[in-house]
Structure formats: structure tokens, C-alpha cells
């Protein structure tokens, strides 16, 4: 254990001096150290990989704040925790946003989402001005007659996400058309 810690500090000192091989070895050592730390806190392997990459980039950016005269591990973990918190914050705020949309849609989901009182053709100009994904969803649902489930399968989204996107698009259209 002590050897590993000494090793990290020695590698870091060499890296700061511009030794590329030492730096690669240091980053490999750090990812080996952080992978289980992240895996314990995140559910998906791809999330672990993405975050690990972010952490390595952050370590690269902040390496001048390490002087080689204090333990390296707490410095590495401070950056890793900081990025993990950032990631979790973004993840949960995204989920919360999604949950808000779903609760807003609670009544709406009971209805047929393909039902719209105006013809698609009469508002197609406005639909094209919507964000690309929303426009595609509305086009598929109202021009080509697909159900939300079929659209979801077609464009590789979840059905609930398609309904949420359609709902948002309707909201924008309603505001634009003054209804």
C-alpha cells in the first residue's frame, strides 16, 4: 500500500517534469484506483467509463495544483468526488425535470396523444420551426399516423419520452397559435 502511494507521488513528480511515460503510468494507476470507487457509486458501466474520462481530463487540467510535497491520493480523490457530485447533480436534476414533465402529463397520458384538434397540414409551418426531434415526432404521429409507441421504436426513444416531447411541442404550438 505504502509502495503504491510512494509510486503515485513519484510518478506525479516525474509527470510534472514532463516525463510522458511516467504520466501515462500515473493516469493508468489513477484509473485503476478510481474505477471501483466510481463503480460502487454508479449503476452503469458506461457511466463509470464516461465519468472516469472526465476525471482524468480534470486531473490533467489541474495537475499544476499538485506540488509533489503532499500525499497525492487525497488530491486525486478530491477531484474525483467533485466530478462525481457534478455528475450526480446533473443526473438527478435531469430525472427531476423528467418527473415534473410526467406529473404534468398525468391527466394528459390518459388521452390519445395522437388526438389534435387542428389538421397537421394547417400548422406544418409552425411544426417545422420546433426543435428537430419534436418536429420529427409530430410529423410521424400526425402526418404518417404512427402511435407514440411506434414512434418510440422507430427513433429509439422510450415511449414516455416521446409522449413528453410531443406534449412539450403541443404546449409550444398552443402558445404560438394563441389557444
Amino acid at each position, binding site marked *: 500500500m505504502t509502495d503504491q502511494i510512494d509510486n503515485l507521488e513519484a510518478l506525479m513528480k516525474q509527470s*510534472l517534469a514532463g516525463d*510522458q511515460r511516467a*504520466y501515462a503510468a500515473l*493516469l493508468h494507476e489513477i484509473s485503476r484506483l478510481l474505477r471501483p470507487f466510481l463503480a460502487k457509486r454508479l449503476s452503469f458501466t458506461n457511466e463509470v*467509463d464516461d465519468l472516469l474520462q472526465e476525471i482524468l481530463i480534470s486531473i490533467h487540467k489541474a495537475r499544476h495544483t*499538485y*506540488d509533489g510535497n503532499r500525499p497525492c491520493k487525497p*488530491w486525486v*480523490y478530491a477531484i474525483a468526488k467533485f466530478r462525481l457530485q457534478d455528475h450526480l447533480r446533473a443526473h438527478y436534476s435531469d430525472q427531476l425535470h423528467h418527473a415534473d414533465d410526467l406529473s404534468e402529463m398525468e391527466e394528459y397520458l390518459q388521452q390519445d396523444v395522437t388526438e389534435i384538434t387542428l389538421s397537421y397540414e394547417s400548422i406544418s409551418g409552425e411544426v417545422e420551426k420546433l426543435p428537430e426531434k419534436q418536429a420529427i415526432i409530430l410529423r410521424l404521429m400526425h402526418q404518417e399516423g404512427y402511435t407514440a409507441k411506434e414512434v418510440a421504436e422507430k427513433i429509439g426513444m422510450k415511449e414516455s419520452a416521446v409522449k413528453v416531447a410531443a406534449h412539450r411541442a403541443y404546449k409550444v404550438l398552443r402558445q404560438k397559435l394563441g389557444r
Partner: protein
Amino acid sequence: MDNINELIDKLAQDTVPVRPAHHPFMLSIEWMVVAGFYLAAAMMLSGARHDLLLKLHDPWFSGEIAALVGVFISTALSAALLSYPDLHQKRRIAFAPVAAFAIFVLVMLFAWRADNPPAPLPVHSFECTLSITLLSVLPAGWIFFVMRQFASTHSHWAGGIAFLFAFSIGALWLRLYEQNDSIMHVVEWHYLPMIIFGLIGMWLGKTVLKW
């Protein structure tokens, strides 16, 4: 896993010799020296209150100045530590402003009790807050600029403390310049706005010191 290896290779290829940042104690001393020159320049331009030497013999006035200097030193030290991701592994010292502010509040309480009969309130009010703010804007901007070159993992605290450091320069200047003995006025228009200033710093720190 392949992506990680690719990234490591790329980062290793990009690496060049890097000069480690200064020790936070050295950094805070640098900041205090620059701030000291700025304060001296401001004092030279505005002039000191004409009874300053006499007032320095008043224990509560000199106590207040000393406590304010304590806030100035502790916030500089804490802001420097907060610029490092791991607080340079000196977490306890980063809390120094808490003690400095506690002492400052105590001194102000005693000074307020000793202000009997109370000194007359000056005719002006918010102008003092405005003057302190105007004088503090430049050091606040400068310290944020310097801190952005580091990697704070506590950006909101770093921002708040950095703003308090800048504000303490303005507060020191006004206390040494303004001919005013009313503790009520000083608390209300010099020091209480410090809280708002600190909150603004926290809010700004979260955005500006993000990396």
C-alpha cells in the same frame, strides 16, 4: 476501457513540463501584499481621517481595526486554500475566517456597548456601502481572475470568501478615512452589507470559478 486507454495516451502525448502553483501560504501573502499596496494607494488618494493617530489610542477603535485586519488575513488564507482541489490538505485552516468573524463580532459588540452616550449618526447612510463596494470591485475582479487559474472544488465558498477578502480592503479603507465615530452607522452601512457581498461572491463563484 479502450476509450480510457486512448485518452490516457492522448493526454500523455500532450503533457509538457508544468510549474507547480505556489504554496497557498505564499499565494495568500502575495495577495495581501498587492491588496496592501492598493489600500495604501487608496489612502494616499483619499487621505486619512485627521484624528487617526488619536483614534488609534482608543482601544475599541484599534480593536476594530485589528479584528478587520484579522478578517483580511484569514480570508486571504482561506481563499488561497480553497483554490486548490484538496484545500492543500489543510482543511482546518480554511475555516480560519469563522474564528476571525467571531472575534470581529465580539469586538463590535463591546465597541457598541462602550459607545455611551452614542456618537451622533452621520447625515449620510448608503454612500458608505457604495464607496466600499466601488473600492472593492477591482480587488474582487482581480482575485477571481487569479483564482480561475486554479482548480477549486468548492467554488461557491471560494467565491464568497474571495469577495469578503476584497470587501475587507474597502471596509479598512473607509474606516481609516471616514471621520465618523457612530458604531450603529458603521455596523449598519459598513459591515452588515458584507453579508450580502459574501452571498454575491458565492453566487458568482459557482459560475465564474467553474472549471
